[in-house]
């Protein structure tokens, strides 16, 4: 039985000091350049929009057939859509689906890709062959066309199902890359020592290898989010998934194919609003990647 000896207050303070320092260090990383501040702020804004946005408006956004494609005004800062609904309201309420499905897709991609890559690279042999054949199969499936086909039988109305499917079809590349890194790491001396000590494979994978590939995985997480945003908006843009006026892809579809926004200035804000949101979001993620890179690679901070 292990005895638990309570720490004295001054000892507890000494123990939490490095944690606080680390947190301060991460904040400093985020705030080090204007680009990162911008990226962080935009992501924070869109996250906030996704969380509280739908509560700011009625569930069923009001329509106004007498104000179709109205220009920007105080009442409608971004104008109105094809049925006179406020475009700002559509953007705000539509953020949740876009972000939630993108995050889920990225999480699924990371979870499957990392697990498959680590297991394949570490255990090798039959496990490696089996996992990599499945990975090759996933890689050979043309993702976007598959999604279009799937959309005929799968209801993408929920961000969870959209995220899940995007994640399931998108993990192949990450698995291959993680496997390569694992293969390289497993020959390193510290892992040979760990094996020599008789540590179980699970411990070596999660405690020894994973931290070493974590920077790469973190970068992929963010890139997967941008990829998922493009994919889901693309699907909605093509009009092959459930129709929801507040979806940014649906907005783009209607703006281009029905509203004549490409040639008509009247519907321009309706086209530009979701487009700029998507661009801002992806730009913010890319800007933040820099900070993540530094966070995981302390050497970069000295440069």
């Amino acid at each position, binding site marked *: 039985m292990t005895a638990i000896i309570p720490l004295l207050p001054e000892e507890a303070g000494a123990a939490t000091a490095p944690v606080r320092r680390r947190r301060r260090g991460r904040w400093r990383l985020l705030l080090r350049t204007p680009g990162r501040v911008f990226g962080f702020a935009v992501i924070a804004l869109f996250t906030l929009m996704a969380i509280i946005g739908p509560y700011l408006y009625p569930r069923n956004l009001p329509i106004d*057939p007498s104000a*179709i494609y109205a220009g920007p005004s105080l009442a409608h800062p971004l104008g109105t859509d094809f*049925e006179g609904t406020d475009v700002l309201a559509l953007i705000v309420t539509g953020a949740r689906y876009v972000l939630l499905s993108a995050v889920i897709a990225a999480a699924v991609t990371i979870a499957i890709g990392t697990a498959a890559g680590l297991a394949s690279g570490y255990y090798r042999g039959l496990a490696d062959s089996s996992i990599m054949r499945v990975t090759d199969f996933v890689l050979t499936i043309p993702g976007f066309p598959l999604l279009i086909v799937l959309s*005929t039988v799968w209801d993408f109305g929920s961000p969870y199902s959209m995220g899940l499917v995007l994640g399931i079809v998108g993990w192949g590349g990450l698995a291959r890359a993680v496997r390569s890194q694992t293969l390289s790491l497993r020959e390193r001396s510290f892992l040979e020592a760990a094996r020599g000590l008789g540590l179980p494979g699970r411990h070596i994978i999660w405690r020894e290898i994973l931290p070493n590939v974590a920077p790469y995985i973190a970068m992929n997480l963010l890139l997967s989010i941008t990829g998922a945003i493009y994919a889901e908006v693309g699907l909605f843009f093509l*009009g092959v998934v459930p*129709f929801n006026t507040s979806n940014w892809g649906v907005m783009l579809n209607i703006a281009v*194919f029905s509203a*004549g926004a490409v040639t008509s200035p009247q519907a321009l804000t309706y086209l530009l609003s979701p487009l700029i949101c998507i661009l801002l979001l992806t730009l913010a993620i890319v800007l933040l990647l820099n900070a993540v890179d530094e966070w995981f690679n302390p050497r970069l901070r000295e440069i």
Partner: protein
Amino acid sequence: MKSRRTHVMNPRRTRYLAVPAAILAAAAALSACSSSAFAGGGQATFTAIDETTPITVGAPMNPFNATNNTFPGYDIENLGWTANDPANSNQTLPGLAQTWTLSPDGTTLTVHLQPKAGWSNGKPVTASDVRVSAAIWFTQSYVQAYNLGSVKVINAKTVQFTQIPGSSNNQFESGILQNPVVPASEYGKLLPASIWSIIAASQGTGKAAAAATTQLTTIGKKVTEFAPKTDISAGPFAIARINSGEAELVKNKYFYAASNIRPSEVLMLHYSGNQQIWSYMQAGRLDAAPYTSMPTNVLNQVVAAGNTKVVAPSLVAVALAFDQKVYPYGIPAVRQALAYVINRQAVQRVGEAVSGIPSKTTTGVVSSALSDYLSPGQVSGLNMYPTDPAKATALLKSAHFTQKGGQWYLPNGKPWTITLSNVSGFSDWVAGSSVIKSELTSFGIPTSVKLAPDYATYLTNLYKGSYPVAFWLIALGPGAYSTFSRIYGTYDGYVPSGARLNRYPTGNAAADNFLNTPNSVSVPGLGTVSPGQLTNQLTSVNLSGSGGIAQQNAIMAKLIRATNYTVPVIQLWDYINVQFVNSKRFTHWPIGNNALLNASPGVWMTYGYVHPK
């Protein structure tokens, strides 16, 4: 059935142009084509797009192929062209048929061909060409619905069509005349020598008839796959070259009305969707453009670019259709309540602002045609279904629906939700359904819109019974029967077989029943009527006989009142045929001539319109 196909084409045109090339797509040069773009350019070059042919790479110059590169009115000439006259659906403009006579009993049609009609290869168009074409119409199921039995060549320029003995279809005349004629020298070789024996056998009963029908289908497939190397046209133009971007049609000097044709050539441009057509018009490239769905802001730009909006009546309406075998849509009060919830003015304003008008009420016929069948007193006696949520609430409560916390619950206690089915790319329908979704959700019935990826998938699912509430085109005139057959015809399971009217359930391949209306309905002031039987009776009224029109109108009045009361569909908006012409290069448009405006500009030219400036 060509006529049915034609009737569906009109709305399809409406919808197709709202569809970014879901049905016909893509592009690449035909093997025989030059890779260079055509110069066009000359003052007499007429530039247009065709409402049914966006130009598809590799598609054959064969009008019987579903995806073909032919242009009706230009290089495809029918015996005649429908005048789209709601008062007389048989009213037809002469095409290759110069004149024709219908026997007093309406069962024999004698057609006299244009004496000067010639193919673009210099050979004359003869009655034999028409007979071969008629055999092909059978293989494509164009004419069976009109009870065509036999075709007889009287002389080189006269051919006689006769109905199956014992039948009397009042749409026979237009059903025959509205079909294309193709050269026997090209298409005759696709048919077996025994084709007319097979056709005769298919009109019988039993296994022999079924086997003959199968044979016809097989021959029909061969016909649709045929790809002529050159375009042999009996129309005013023939295709000279075609590539992925455009087709060049040159004048057919052997055309029977060649002297009327002023443009020396026609350039048909490829398009992949509405947006491209808008761009063509905004750039002033098109001399004429058929109906194209567009919002008001685009219309303003198109008109500002020098295009003139030309309006003609259209006998098509769009409606929300219910599958009555799906609970709770079999309850009349439910459908009536929904009709009171939906604001048709708002739906039309958002869905089809430019080319539609809100339907006055829901009757199964376009509002402008109501007076053809009903007296003013009868019209005013119809229920107009104004937007009235209180009435809707009362109706639903009378049907034991309950409302808690703003949400409606079915009598069985389950929350009532609706999924509106629609087609991706049909921008007017999708926009309209978005408004309905909003209105129903606000009323307390959470509604979502589900899009099928394309029209073919939509129809397949619809006919399988997968869509309880879906958008549907109705009132496809001209013609009383074709108007109501969209509700009480094959889509309600009714299929005539000789004197008998069969009814098939959803899923039976003999019909496309997805409406499942009751066999008979009780209508206040009218008693019990059988809409399916009444609709079928419309085919056999002798319209040329005395009292025929009155008899037809009496049936129509009953159907209108029954439809208005039982609401098998909620009529949303009536279409208007809005086209555009540009007078920069050409003048003399058939503005005001509604019969011609229903046909393509190639037919306008045949009738002496469209002059170079």
